[in-house]
């Protein structure tokens, strides 16, 4: 049984560019949450998707957007990248309250 998978593993982008990160949830899970983890910090909740709708958003600007597909996989899009967007982006899948994290995508903005 595959766990949560994310792609790509690493990504380097330039300020002002746009990026798309991808997540496939654990089998049987229908909810995907995205988190940003800055170096040396705990993950910060970005938003959650369920039934292809954004259900809740944390304290992140509209430059951060997402999508969930009928197969429950999800994308995180970030527009107009800033240096401060450099972080590990984590996807977590769930069916109820327990959330299981993927390995993350390391985004570096130069």
């Amino acid at each position, binding site marked *: 049984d595959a766990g*949560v998978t994310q792609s790509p593993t690493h990504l380097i982008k330039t300020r002002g560019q746009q990026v798309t990160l991808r997540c496939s949830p654990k089998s049987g899970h229908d909810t995907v949450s995205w988190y940003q983890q800055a170096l040396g910090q*705990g993950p910060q909740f970005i938003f*959650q998707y369920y039934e292809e709708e954004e259900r*809740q958003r944390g304290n992140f600007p509209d430059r951060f957007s997402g999508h969930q597909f009928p197969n429950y996989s999800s994308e995180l899009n970030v527009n107009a990248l800033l240096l401060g967007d450099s972080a590990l982006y984590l996807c977590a899948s769930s069916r109820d309250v327990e959330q*299981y*994290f993927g390995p993350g995508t390391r985004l570096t903005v130069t």
Partner: protein
Amino acid sequence: QQQVKQSPQSLIVQKGGISIINCAYENTAFDYFPWYQQFPGKGPALLIAIRPDVSEKKEGRFTISFNKSAKQFSLHIMDSQPGDSATYFCAAKNSGGGADGLTFGKGTHLIIQP
């Protein structure tokens, strides 16, 4: 505003000893409290979680103690091993809040010395 405060920031324990990490929360709507273990370059892995209807939960060498009146909970790692060396995060959530995400502490870097 940090809603989950975690301490200590770093901790060194001798092999075989007990590692203790503490967390305090502010939001009384929180009713689900998990602990995650994260190794460098990896995503957080769910270790153990507790609900406020019990004061303690044990799974193997890991125990969560919960004090609802003090709004505090802690992770105890018994017989700590070098392989336990990692960063540990406490988190909290309002499970009745539907789409609420987890609120994490800032993490504790644990080193188990052989």
